[in-house]
């Protein structure tokens, strides 16, 4: 069974075209059954073994391996029933121009008897399947996530299309201490003007607040973005647009542990589960500030022992194609040798200003982002 051939024309803005793409899947199932064939859909396999580097876009995308959702097994048949039920629901949602969240979709399936999802993970995954199958992002068929967008603060003026009409906002002058919250539909934002030289994306709230309090954005003409842990699609999309449209370097500042490296990787290269969206979300030019394992040694940072899970995660990263560079191999190996990890805020050992006065300038210099 070859993968379904869905029309490759770009997603049109009107719900009808998107509904057609979705219904195309159902048509495929229908014609298979009509011919007496076992209905099945092939979806790209979403494992790290099946992501590959795309020369053209510089990001990691899915390779050729596909997994089949086939009625050959009872589980597969059930999966197709669920898929069809979701398509039916989405078609209706597009027709009446409503939207719903991933969580709402999961609850809606309560009424679907056999097609009911046992947990939200499964409905989330099915939505990802659909994104791949019809080459649309879920936002385009009106499925949102709950996660709130990033906070952003810095010398940037934007215009947001809201339900209450367009709003013009300056992300430093018009906002409070915690900055401006990016909406889920990042493409509803238009960049008007800016005075920035760089974007610093920060993992933890504590460090974001520290940089704001120390006036780092002012002193360095920087736009600060709070990633809030693993960044949402909206945050990643925003970073990509800041980089692509405003030509700003994206610098990622996280803790010094394997989970934080994955945060960086998903910003820079895309995530394994979302590689179908890499070209839309990933910023291949993003750079990693730290905390680097070598910083633990160089700055004599307070550190914690690696847990077993940490070590497992580091080992997994050694076989992850996204970390297959001399830099990452060296740093990960070093960390395994050290057996230790450090948080961003461990820099406070040398005083609250140390991060803005010493560490960041040194690291930015090293990355060539700071020309003084």
């Amino acid at each position, binding site marked *: 069974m070859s993968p379904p051939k869905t029309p490759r024309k770009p997603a049109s803005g009107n719900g009808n075209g998107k509904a057609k793409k979705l*219904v195309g899947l*159902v*048509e495929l*199932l*229908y014609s298979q*059954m*009509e011919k*007496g*064939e*076992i*209905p099945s859909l092939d979806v790209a396999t979403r494992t790290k073994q099946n992501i590959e580097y795309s020369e053209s876009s510089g990001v990691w995308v899915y390779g050729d391996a596909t997994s089949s959702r086939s*009625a*050959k*097994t*009872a589980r597969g*048949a*059930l999966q*197709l*029933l669920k898929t*069809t*039920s979701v*398509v*039916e629901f989405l*078609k209706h949602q597009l027709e009446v121009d409503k939207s719903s969240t991933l969580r709402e979709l999961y609850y809606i399936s309560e009424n679907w*008897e*056999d*097609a009911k999802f046992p947990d939200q993970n499964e409905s989330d995954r099915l939505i990802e399947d659909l994104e791949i199958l019809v080459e649309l992002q879920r936002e385009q068929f009106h499925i949102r996530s709950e996660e709130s967008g990033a906070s952003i603060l810095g010398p940037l003026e934007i215009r947001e299309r809201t339900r209450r009409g367009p709003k013009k906002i300056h992300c430093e002058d018009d906002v409070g201490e915690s900055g401006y919250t990016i909406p889920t539909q990042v493409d509803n934002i238009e960049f008007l003007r800016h005075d920035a030289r760089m974007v610093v994306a920060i993992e933890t709230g504590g460090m974001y607040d520290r940089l704001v309090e120390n006036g780092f954005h002012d002193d360095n003409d920087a736009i600060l973005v709070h990633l809030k842990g693993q960044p949402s699609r909206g945050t990643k999309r925003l970073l990509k647009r800041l980089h692509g449209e405003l030509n700003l370097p994206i610098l990622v500042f996280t803790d010094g542990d394997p989970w934080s490296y994955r945060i960086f990787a998903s910003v820079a290269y895309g995530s394994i589960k979302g590689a179908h969206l890499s070209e839309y979300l990933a910023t291949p030019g993003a750079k990693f500030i730290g905390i680097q394992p070598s910083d633990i040694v160089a700055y004599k940072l307070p550190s914690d022992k690696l847990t077993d899970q940490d070590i497992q995660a580091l080992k997994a990263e050694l076989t992850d194609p996204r970390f297959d560079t001399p830099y990452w191999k060296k740093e990960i190996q070093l960390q395994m040798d050290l057996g230790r990890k450090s948080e961003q805020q461990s820099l406070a050992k040398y005083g609250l200003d140390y991060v803005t006065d010493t560490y960041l300038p040194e690291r930015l210099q090293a990355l060539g982002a700071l020309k003084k």
Partner: protein
Amino acid sequence: MDSSAARGATAQDLARKQREISVAEFFEKNRQILGFDSPQRSLATCVKEAVDNSLDACEEAGLLPDIYVEIRRAPGDAANLFRVIVEDNGPGIVAEQVPRVFGKLLYGSHFHVIRQSRGQQGIGISACVLYAQLTTGRPALVLTKTAPDRPASRVELTLDTRRNEARVLRREEASWDRPRGTRVELEVRGAYFTGRRSVPEYLRACAIVNPHARITFLDPEGMEARFDRSSDHLPRLPGESKPHPGGTEMGTLLKMVEHYAGALGEFLQGEFARVGPKTAREIADAAQMDPQMRVGDLTRGQAQRLVESFRRVKLLPPSADSLSPIGEDLMFRGLQKGVTADFISVVTRPPGSHGGHPFIVEVALAYGGAAPREEKVEVLRFANRVPLLYQPGACALTHAVERVHWRPYGLDQSGESLPQGPALLLVHLASTHVPFVSESKDAVADIPEVLAELDLALKQVGRDLKGFLSKRKGIEKRREKEDLIQRILPKLAEKVGGVLQRPPPDTAPVVARIMGNLLLQRDGARLHAANHGEAPRRFHLAARSHQVRKEWDLSLEPGARRTLDFPADHVHVEGLPAEMVTLGRGLAPLDDGKSPRGPVTRVHNPGRREAPAGPTSSSLAPLPRTGATGKRETSPTTLAAFSAEPEKPEEATRP
């Protein structure tokens, strides 16, 4: 004072007391060794001895046994007195013989013949007569008739224990509506129970290993139980055989020598089995004797040497012609009739020998059905087709079962004990000499040769069971999947059609493909049959279109398809389990009662059953060879219930 007189008897005194003890007197004092220890057992023994005799007599006369057993409370108040009646359709007993047969211990037709029979020593029925007389004082009543055109004779007798002779109280001609047969009535002290080791249990076990017998039983409450025949074939009557030197003891040899006038060489060749001129010479040489010497001149010492050389010279094992195993086919039928089971496996081993006596071991295992899951398996033991009810713990047939590790075969077991699970084991030892541990014939001794054969047979049925269980698991999985598929796919079709606002597609072809089924599909004026399975399918197809009915025998390779020019609306497939057939839209199951056969039942067909020979209403029909040597090797075990093979044997042979 004469101290000797005070101390005891003189030799003269003793001589006055010394006299012959008749066998009858001996048994009167030691009746427990003949199976008359408890009242319950005594009653069962009387039934058993009479039924054994009836079965023996019928088989020897080539008649299909029809046996009637009745236990009645004796008139009067005594709750522990019973009348036992056993009646058969056998050859009858010549009138003059009746007193000896029933009134003399150690008198019978089996002892001097080397071949398998139930009775052996000639003490069975006369011991019962004796027991009746000892416990109730009532005589035995015998009615017997040897031919339809001759009168029956009715004899009342007791046993004179001193002289080991019958005392005939009454003898008269009588009329009897049976063409021939024998009826024995005894009044005995006993206790009537049901359940383990009871009369009904004994009869049930009897019916299982004697599927050619019809047994009717009327219990003291007046309830009738009937064990019908499941076979119209008499077991092959075993041939008589001469003694095999390997099993000949000193006493037997001396008795054989007594009346022989001839040379040693001829004696050995002529009177023993498996002895030719060469072997005779070897035996004589080993005993350092001249083959030309006259046997009459044999000294005790020489006889002793001869018996020793019998053991030393290499001999062919005794022939199994004198044995009559039940046979795999009849064991299968007996069990199929007697128990409910999902699976039955039967094994008749090739013959072996122990101490110069041939023997054959047979084992059958019935699994599932109504057998209790949590209990130890029931083991039915048999020796020469006689159920063994007592002393299971002392018996080699039980020991062999305990020594097999059953877990790998799918039965629970703790240590070296009987396995546990919903199964019944039938274990049979047939031999011209069953090595019982005691005269009460309850338990077989642990003879290594017998144990080894039992072990092989038990493991064989164990392997069959394992195969069945794993196949059944596969079937269960398949059924589970099919249930899900049959639930989900129509919903999918419905949903897919709903989204597209088109009629839902027919799911039958998809289901057939997923399950590897045979698909029948109506297409305009034609009918398609397509095999989506991985094995070739042969089946009989019946179809109806309005009032027209047609039938085909079809054979389809995997992936193959046949188109029939027939606008069928109803179809029926024979030779495939229903769940392996999928009907497309517009086809309904054909159920007009004209279908040649009912649905296929899930009974295991062990595949090595023999096909029964032709019509068999007459008892003169040729005796089929059941159970014989090497059969196991030539015919592999198949699980008919799960292949496409139909259940009944005559169907299996259909082209």
